[in-house]
């Protein structure tokens, strides 16, 4: 029986990288969004420019479950011959196969338990267009049109989106709309429309927006007052810097002079990028870089310097699959320990861990306040799933009354008023000293910044006592960071629950659904989402309050569990890891199955990676 579902299905597009499918697929997804149905689109793409297979998956979920669903898709738009067999094999029983029937499909290539919908797309486009590139691009638009007919998507909404997309280019609007109609009309005559899978107008989206985490993070840097961005291209973080550059071009040009209120430099490597950020932070600008794991590895020495010399630095780390070059286009949460303890010697750094684009915006903006307040590096830990996929999220908000916290910077006037200035002296008991900026007071407040040990007055020394004094003050400063960092967020089961699930970052997208699946199975669980390192003492309280605690992570080595034991003194025996690290986003099914399996009285078989 073909699947019957309205506003609750997964459609997967199998395309060839570089074929222009991305914009057509986005158009498709946005049309559903405009009809008010929640969607979660995800790219699954290779580290390649042209030719390799790429997939785009759209989950439609009236209930608002927006993590990757896992399992097979309900509908496949098979536009890549290379992966056809494996794509068809992965289709759910009762699913729909939509393919280009210009060339006949050998019976061995399909299945008996799915519905097959063939449309001669290449033939249709060949008849209509003579230019080969146009044939390819408009073939994409034609299948979007056909899908609109098959899934009952309002074609008017698609036309409206095309008009917005190509605003001011009337010829393109007309040409795209025509291709859309070509597919739509042909599908209407060829098939009984709509299918069992349907999109229906809904109010479920509300005023939410659809946005990529990397763009949101760049927007956070813009609103957070970043004036210096130094970066080096690396997947999956490149679009943070590029979005920042575009935003700055729009919002940071002085209307009177045309001068830019920002400096963006593409550095020669990640080491130079972080070096520039450290130099700018030292000199009083809000500066950041965006990178990924390999970049953080290269930057290590500078993180030690910034920690020890106490220079504000903001780093957006969009995590990908490691180690080494690893899986550049797959997602993981495997840089936690790398960033938390970056560089040699005793170092500890502040991590902010957003759950999606909304917090990516908030936390990136807040990172500049925290970095200047604490005079230390602050990492914003995104991952590829958050950064490079579009997520439905609450609209961005900003309070116009909000002022930047520039931290403890002594002005020339304050320098005149105080009795003495000690750059590394803890005046307020919070471990954070006062600093001065170059170029301020003509005769007071100059000091020498160095990575070597020094006393409270920034004088070089290797004596044990001042060294220990300084290191202990830095440890005290980390406790101040613990108080300032965002607190964890609790999702309560409502009634007292013996099961507690600790999670963080992009896992949040799957967690509500996982909790619902568990509740359906009679396993009520509370969930606590960690949002920062140093860890809140509330996390230890949560662990103590539950009989069985699971820590869900997207890495192999249970890095958050390690942080929980080292930073909070928790007993690792009290924490059961659920680890998903194959590079695809974690799914609710995986979490729920893993929790249920570990709660079975008999020894359960090990949970294997869900590879779909």
């Amino acid at each position, binding site marked *: 029986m073909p699947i019957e579902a309205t506003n609750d299905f997964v459609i997967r597009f199998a395309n060839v990288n570089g074929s222009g499918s991305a914009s057509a697929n986005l158009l498709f997804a946005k049309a559903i969004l405009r009809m008010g149905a929640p969607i979660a689109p995800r790219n699954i793409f290779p580290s390649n420019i042209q030719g390799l297979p790429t997939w785009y998956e759209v989950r439609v979920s009236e209930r608002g479950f927006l993590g990757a669903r896992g399992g097979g898709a309900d509908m496949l738009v098979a536009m890549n011959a290379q992966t056809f067999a494996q794509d068809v094999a992965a289709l759910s029983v009762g699913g729909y196969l939509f393919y280009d029937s210009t060339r006949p499909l050998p019976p061995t290539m399909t299945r008996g338990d799915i519905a097959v919908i063939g449309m001669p797309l290449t033939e249709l486009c060949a008849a209509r267009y003579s230019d080969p590139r146009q044939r390819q691009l408009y073939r994409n638009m034609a299948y979007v049109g056909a899908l609109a007919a098959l899934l009952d998507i309002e074609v008017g909404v698609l036309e409206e989106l095309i008009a917005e997309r190509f605003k001011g280019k009337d010829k393109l609007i007309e040409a795209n709309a025509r291709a859309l109609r070509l597919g739509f009309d042909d599908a209407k005559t060829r098939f009984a429309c709509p299918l069992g899978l349907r999109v229906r107008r809904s109010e479920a989206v509300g005023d939410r927006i659809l946005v990529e985490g990397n763009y949101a993070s760049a927007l956070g840097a813009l609103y957070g007052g970043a*004036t210096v961005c130094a970066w080096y291209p690396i997947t999956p973080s490149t679009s943070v810097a590029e979005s920042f550059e575009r935003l700055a071009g729009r919002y940071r040009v002085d209307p009177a002079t045309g001068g830019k209120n920002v400096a963006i*430099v593409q550095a020669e490597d990640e*080491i130079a990028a972080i070096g520039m950020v450290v130099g700018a932070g030292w000199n009083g600008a809000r500066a950041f870089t965006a990178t990924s794991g390999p970049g953080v590895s290269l930057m290590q020495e500078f993180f030690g310097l910034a920690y020890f010399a106490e220079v504000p630095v903001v780093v957006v780390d969009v995590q990908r699959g490691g180690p080494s070059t690893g899986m550049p286009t797959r997602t993981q949460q495997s840089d936690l320990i790398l960033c938390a303890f970056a560089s040699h010697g005793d170092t500890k750094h502040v991590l902010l861990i957003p759950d999606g684009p909304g917090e990516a915006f908030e936390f990136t903006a807040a990172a500049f306040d925290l970095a200047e307040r604490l005079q230390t590096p602050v990492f914003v830990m995104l991952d590829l799933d958050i950064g490079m996929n579009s997520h439905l999220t609450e609209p961005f908000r*900003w309070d116009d009354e909000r002022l*930047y916290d520039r931290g403890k910077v002594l002005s020339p006037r304050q320098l005149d008023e105080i009795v003495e200035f000690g750059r590394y002296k803890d005046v307020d008991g919070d471990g954070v000293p006062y600093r001065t900026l170059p*170029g301020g007071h003509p005769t007071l407040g100059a000091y020498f910044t160095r*990575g*070597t040990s020094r006393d409270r007055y920034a004088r070089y020394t290797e004596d044990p006592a001042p060294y220990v004094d300084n290191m202990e003050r830095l440890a005290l400063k980390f406790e101040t960071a613990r108080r300032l960092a965002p607190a964890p967020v609790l999702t309560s089961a409502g009634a007292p629950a013996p099961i507690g699930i600790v999670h963080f970052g992009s896992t949040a997208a799957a967690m509500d659904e996982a909790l619902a699946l568990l509740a359906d199975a009679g396993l009520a669980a509370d969930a606590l989402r960690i949002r920062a390192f140093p860890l809140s003492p509330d996390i230890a309280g949560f662990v103590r309050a539950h009989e069985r605690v699971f820590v869900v992570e997207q890495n192999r080595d249970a890095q958050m569990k390690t942080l929980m034991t080292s930073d909070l003194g928790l007993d690792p025996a009290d924490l059961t890891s659920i680890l998903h690290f194959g590079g695809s986003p974690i799914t609710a099914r995986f979490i729920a199955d893993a929790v249920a399996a570990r709660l079975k009285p008999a020894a359960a078989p090990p949970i294997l990676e869900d590879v779909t």
Partner: protein
Amino acid sequence: MTFQGKPKFRHPSIPTNTLGFTRRDYEGSMSTLCAGCGHDSITAAIVHACFELALPPHRVAKLSGIGCSSKTPTYMLGQSHGFNSVHGRMPSVLTGAYLANRELAYLGVSGDGDTASIGLGQFCHVMRRGVRMVYIVENNGVYGLTKGQFSATADRGSKSKKGARAADEPIDLAALAIQLGATFVARSFSGDKGQLVPLLKAAFGHRGAAFIDVISPCVTFNNHEGSTKSYDYVREHNIAVSALDFITGREPIEIDYAEGAALAVTMHDGATIHLRKLDAEHDFSDRAAALTLLERCRETGEIPTGLLYLDDDVEELHDTLGTTARPLNALTEAELCPGAKALEAINRGLR
């Protein structure tokens, strides 16, 4: 070498500059380098140049990497902020500082190991970008703090104190700087203060990337027979290709030159340098000619010193970036934050 502090006492009639500062005000703490180190002479030349230029000390930022040379910013300009960063990475830190505040003068102090070995990449790129700065390499051809290993500027065939011969082709930082777009490139000798001080003064007035490679003998590890960076060797092989007379806009001085012998160049800050060509053939504004000169001297084993190349029509980093004239570190919410209304419009575009 010394462990004593500098005496605070000042003679009442000690000369002051136009800002009312004495030379002492441009000094730093006592040097801990070896007695006779060339680097201390360079420090003295920098102090001298800044005093005579009457640079407000707090408007200079001094940055360095790691090594003997990189320690010297502690010994100069005690009223300036300093940053002793990490090995070979001073150029990026200086670039970032310059991005944050374009109004200060930036002095980068580095060594041959810090620049030509570990830091060669950053050196190249900071020159390419045209960062407005004075970048000095205190070049002695060896690693001093780790006791005498060769650096990448050691001449092929020169001998280390322990008797080893440098096997690899040396890196000529001046040639590299010219090739990569530095617009003020000079070479000098720590033992020739008369040449070095005017070069430094001119470099501070330059509106782009100014680079000075200063041969600075290491008295402990590279001042022996067979070294090409020893005092004796450099004195014997030094040929000055140009001489500078530095004239600030404030103190007009009449100097007579034979026609054609001197070239007057007005610097960005209004000062003038008179450049006397000692090598009649050399054209200072010709990049190819400067490189040819360096190559010719390499063949003959001579060390050409003085200003080698100057391009005063400069596009420096902030020009390229189109940055606002105000220092970026002085901008506030009003200039930086687009505000709630703009955010609402952004939200609308994402639905």
